[in-house]
């Protein structure tokens, strides 16, 4: 007896039983005689080819435990490097960036071949799952204090919400390291203190520091050398920082 659907209401407690046997997907088709149910015999066989079978998956009865199955199909989800120091108070940002790519404002452009992380200029489509109308409404809220209209426009174009708050955390990347860090610029009042913090963050000694230059991306999206500008200019206009190896 075919029960009319209850129009989105509660269902009968046991699901409808359908007489179909699970088929073996590892064979490229199935024989009608293998008990699939009488209603399927008259139809031609539907063959599943190799592309339909996910060869990476194992529907084994002993599933991998948490530690064992690190293998993920997505190349760019980086594993955390245990050797790296990270203070527990600072959250990390996973960067999908290739280390040498300096001209990537969003830091999220996917150069690998995986189709999973799609990029429409905003990073992943529909992620984080914040409703589009909420994004739009938040974008319209004017910012506090130091933020000027250029930044609002630039952020709006990037799909970034101009924030209602006045935060001073910026992302810091080091050339050659995939994972970015975050620091709070407001606790610094000079390049000296900033430098020593960065050296500590990335574990760079005094001698090695000479081989690096600090660059920053300003409100208009240009990358500049921090040493070329006064501290005040730097602190007001930097959106994110990058340590690059100085050449020659």
């Amino acid at each position, binding site marked *: 007896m075919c029960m009319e*659907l209850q*129009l*989105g*209401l*509660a*269902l009968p407690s046991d*699901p409808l039983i*359908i007489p179909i046997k699970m088929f073996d*997907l590892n064979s490229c088709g199935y024989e009608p005689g293998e008990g699939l149910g009488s209603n*399927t015999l008259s139809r031609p066989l*539907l*063959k*599943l*080819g190799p*592309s*339909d079978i*996910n060869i990476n*998956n*194992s*529907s*084994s009865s002993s599933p*991998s*435990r948490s*530690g064992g*199955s690190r293998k*993920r199909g*997505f190349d760019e989800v980086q594993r*955390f490097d245990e050797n790296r120091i990270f203070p527990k108070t600072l*959250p*990390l*940002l996973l960067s999908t960036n290739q280390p040498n790519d300096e001209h990537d404002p969003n*830091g999220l452009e996917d150069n690998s071949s995986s*189709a999973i*992380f*799609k990029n429409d200029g*905003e990073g992943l*489509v*529909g*992620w*984080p*799952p*914040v*409703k589009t*109308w909420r994004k739009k*409404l*938040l974008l*319209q*809220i*004017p910012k506090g204090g130091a933020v000027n209209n250029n930044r609002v426009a630039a952020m709006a174009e*990037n799909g970034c*919400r101009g*924030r*209602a*708050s006045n*935060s001073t*955390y*910026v*992302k810091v990347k080091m050339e050659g390291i995939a994972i970015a860090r*975050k620091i709070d610029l407001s606790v610094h009042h000079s390049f000296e203190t900033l430098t020593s913090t960065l050296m500590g963050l990335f574990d760079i000694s005094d001698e090695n520091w000479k081989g690096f230059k600090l660059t920053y991306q300003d409100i208009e999206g240009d990358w500049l050398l921090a040493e070329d500008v006064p501290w005040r200019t730097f602190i007001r206009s930097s959106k*994110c920082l990058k340590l690059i190896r100085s050449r020659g």
Partner: protein
Amino acid sequence: MESSELKRSKDSPNSDESAGLSSFPDEVLERVLSLLKSHRDRSFVSLVCKDWYNAERWSRTHVFIGNCYSVSPEIVARRFPNIRSVTLKGKPRFSDFNLVPQNWGADIHAWLVVFAAKYPFLEELRLKRMAISDESLALLAVAFPNFKALSLLSCDGFSTNGLAAIATNCKNLTELDIQENGIDDKGGSWLGCFPESFTSLEVLNFANLTSDINFDALERLVGRCKSMRVLKLNRSISLEQLQRLLVNAPQLAELGTGSFSQELTFRQYKELECTLSNRKNMHTLSGLWEAKGIYLPALYPACTNLTFLNLSYAALQSSELAKLLAHCPRLKRLWVLDTVQDKGLEAIGLNCPLLEELRVFPDDPFGEEIVHGVTEAGFVAVSYGCPRLHYVLYFCQQMTNAAVATVVQNCPDFTHFRLCIMNPGQPDYLTNEPMDEAFGAVVKTCTKLQRLSVSGLLTDLTFEYIGRYAKNLETLSVAFAGSSDWGMQCVLGGCPKLRKLEIRDCPFGNAALLSGLEKYESMRSLWMSACKVTMNGCRLLAREMPRLNVEVMKEDGSDDSQADKVYVYRSIAGPRRDAPPSVLTL
């Protein structure tokens, strides 16, 4: 209590069962059943026997349709002749995040045409994620003389012209609730379309509209609608204007302010404070766009009896929130932005012992400048102070398994647990482990769990836990998680009450999809996007399960054999005929 009433009448002593039931007068049965409000109770009632089925269908006045394509309007009208109130939901939930193509469907118009013919006495229409045009709104406005309540949530396709049609023509309107929609906002003149003789409005929510409103018209409208109890303004309304409106609406139970940042003189501030004081029947407060900390104290006297405070548009700092919450002892539901940080969440734990629902939204989810936001510490702090918490939506940058385990230990009554660690695939940041144990703790401890959203680095183990323990789970959202088909198979094989499963960017393929064959007819819908399902797999599903609609949405430039986005749902209306070219029905 209603079901026990039913049981008594069913067990009443009669000579034999069939004679007993048929000798029970229809009118009495209908009268009794008309007292049943819950649509689940009604569904069970209709299954008892043919007499009860008929009595139920004649006495039903409200119908809830969770998926507009599961049934056709003609079938609904045939079964339920006396409907006065309809609730319809359309697009898959991921359309909120731009994952569903434009023009996907869920257009209300065909329904309205049938309703106009079969339910001319229709009073209420509540739509979620439906497409509704101005033409449809115009039809609605004239076809139903008794029309009272229109609620649109996450809908799109209409403009303020459609609202003007409603305002002009619906003489008995009590509720106009336009929330969170994709509206073409052409200006605020529609408010002036309510006739001067119109006084019945009780609920008015236009908070989502962006343009300036005809304030004089609004002021007059609020002044003459003496029964108004819900008023939610948009950002264009200033504090001064708010003051003028409030003076005319002393009985408001729910208030959504406009912008809360206009420069006020001291006298204006005092006036506002006075107007807001002694609002003992106000239980819901929202809006507070751009709230300036210095004006918040004006709200304090209005907060005494607040049970729902929505601060998700006010970027408050932790101290501002703490001071405000000290005046909100009865708070049950709280929505905030993560600008309040962990300190703000601690304040919640200290001040809101009755809290049942907390939502923490990200202030800047897509920005480059990463703000600190909230962490696991804030989550734990709230859980210590708010043992009654049963609904949480939490966006954060970092989380640990231990923290989640502590949270659910403190709050075992979770029914809705939605955790979004914003970096996809991020592990426990202290131990580097996957977040499997966190969600394991959730499903093991929270036996009443109905809705779960998972995030972070997750292996199949998470889904084993879910399948094994989440016996009351109805809705599951999964993104960037799992290791193999086995994960999804565990869920499909395990959760007996599963109704909605939505998955994106997971390594689940045909084996997983097809393991749910028996399950999908007992579910409302399945969504899978950017997984490893192929067209052949979908075709097989469609072939084996004729009562399911299997729809595939292809992306431009993708491999022909891949099924980029799959939407599967049960239906008694057959495959739909209004799908756009980008949607293939198999």
